[in-house]
């Protein structure tokens, strides 16, 4: 698979003037967003503002009315079917509910993309799938369990292992920590950070979780009224004067999350 030549400082995902209309309602209005290679981007916004819609539009599950989406420098509208498949192989998606195939065991779920795309020996597939399951912090003995036998946190981990099955360059995470208890969510954040550093991933994360934003995001983009109203790191967010951003990042809950994070940093420092 010849990766298209791309300058290292070029954005890995480029979204330009994208408009999406659902049920006669304009959800995204001329939205523009770049994601850089190797960063963790947190995408936040109020409920129903269209965070998930943008993610689903980028990965091609929702149609857009106008605008350009480029991933790895390939314009997905103009790409041939083969080029699209090549791009799809280089990203992994973690859906909000995990979306594991309920009729397959954990190891079969992780092997599914390998089986479809690669021609590997069964031994290598088993070994790699177990390595992936262990990487996301599961024990090898979950291999033959069905998704129905797993807890919510484990389902998310298996789903992450499946998203990572083909060693993608980008992973899309749709609310990875929703439905997890705070300790589980913290572990999951740490896991994403570790994997991102180990595998050199670019992470596009839709989230509500202030702790995740503090802990692992390099950059944050805020969606409101169909547009990205502000993007930058946490300091930019705290300095922003938009009322929603102010409420979100400087409200009661966020102060608690920020303080906890700073305390943790101080502890590490001392």
């Amino acid at each position, binding site marked *: *698979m010849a990766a298209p030549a791309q300058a290292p400082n070029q954005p890995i995902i480029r979204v330009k003037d994208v408009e999406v209309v659902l049920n006669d309602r304009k959800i995204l209005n001329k939205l523009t967003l770049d994601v850089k290679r190797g960063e963790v981007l947190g995408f936040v916004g109020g409920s129903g503002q269209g965070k998930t819609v943008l993610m689903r539009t980028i990965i091609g599950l929702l149609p857009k009315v106008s605008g350009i989406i480029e991933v790895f420098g390939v314009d997905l509208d103009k790409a041939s079917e083969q080029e699209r498949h090549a791009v799809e192989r280089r990203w992994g998606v973690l859906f909000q509910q995990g979306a594991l195939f*309920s*009729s397959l065991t954990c190891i079969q779920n992780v092997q599914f993309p390998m089986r479809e795309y*690669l*021609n*590997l*020996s069964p031994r*290598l597939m088993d*070994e*790699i799938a*177990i*390595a*992936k399951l*262990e*990487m996301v912090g599961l024990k*090898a*003995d979950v*291999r033959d369990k*069905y*998704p*129905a*036998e797993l807890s919510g946190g484990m389902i998310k981990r298996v789903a992450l292992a499946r998203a*990572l099955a*083909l*060693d993608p360059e980008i992973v899309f995470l749709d609310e990875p920590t929703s439905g997890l208890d705070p300790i589980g969510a913290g572990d999951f954040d740490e896991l994403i950070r570790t994997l991102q*550093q*180990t*595998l050199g991933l670019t992470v596009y994360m839709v989230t509500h979780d202030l702790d995740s934003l503090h802990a692992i995001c390099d950059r944050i983009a805020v969606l409101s009224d169909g547009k990205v109203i502000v993007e930058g790191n946490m300091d930019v967010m705290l300095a922003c004067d938009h009322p929603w951003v102010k409420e979100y990042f400087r409200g009661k809950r966020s102060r608690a999350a920020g303080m906890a994070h700073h305390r943790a940093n101080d502890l590490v420092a001392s």
Partner: protein
Amino acid sequence: MSEALLTTVARGDRLELAAAGAWTVDCASDLETLVDAAVAQAKSVKSVAINMANVERLDTFGAWLLERLVRDFSTDGRGIDVVGLPPRYNDLVHEAQQSNRKQPEAPSEDIVDTAAMLLRRAGRMFLRDITLTVQLFGQLVMAILRIARNPRTFRFTSMVHHLDRVGWRAVPIVLLITFLIGCIIAQQSLFHFRKFGADVYVVDMVGILVLREIGVLIVAVMIAGRSGSSYTAELGSMKMREEIDALQTMGLDPVEVLILPRILALVIALPALSFLGSMAALYGGGMVCWLYGGMSPEIFLSRLQEAISLDHFEVGISKAPFMALIIGIIASVEGLAVKGSAESLGLQTTASVVKSIFLVIVLDGIFAMFFAAIGK
């Protein structure tokens, strides 16, 4: 291109490997072949060195294959040196070193063992089925006793609703199918009895067979497929969505609220449907005798009156409530056995239909022996 990924040079009893290019997912298949070949080649050498300096890219697949190479070489205490690994891949290789440490237990290959295991499992499932069925029957009896003491708690509306679904709405299809079965029996008997000049006994054949056996059996099999399956699917999806657990935590007995009205509806509906079905089958038989056999309806009716007695009808219809009970209990047991996945819902629904049809036929056989023994 795959040649360049891994080159091997033997120097005396030392093997030198040089890795190059992209050790990534796209080349994983070629790479595995190369790694296995290198391991096979190195059987006789004392030490091995692998130079990773020229590797351009490395991902989990490459890192794991490197780790597999290292492990395969070092099994019998030989040394292996990995040199020149670009530092940016240290984390990844470290991660690969941690994985696949615990060998999973290999599934038993012994045919006898496997067969014994399968038999044991089948035995356990059979025992489980019997236990659950008896248990549910017990719960039903308890629920009925509770209701007998306090009749106002009975879910009458629910029962009427189910009676409508499994009884009233099943009437057209039951009539149609039993009518056709009656036609077929009459036609076949006519065809063969005519050879012996015994045309008139066709009426005995149709009358006795339909009233004693076929009427109730066909209707029970149809209801097992039509209503048993829907009971299982309903209860199963309620189980999946934790609705049954919710009922229980509110202090209500799911057997009393959900299962009893359904089974009672079946117990009422099946005899009624059997009666209608038997009549339709007799009607079909009479039609065929008239149109195909040239036997006028008057003769058919008078012969029928001589051939059958109330006993035959009683034998047939008395089996219906028991068959309904079996269908209802099996459907409920299977419904409650559904686990979280969509697949398990499908499996249990199939099991419900298969088991209830099987048991309906077994029950019919037992009744046949019973009635023969008491001389009816």
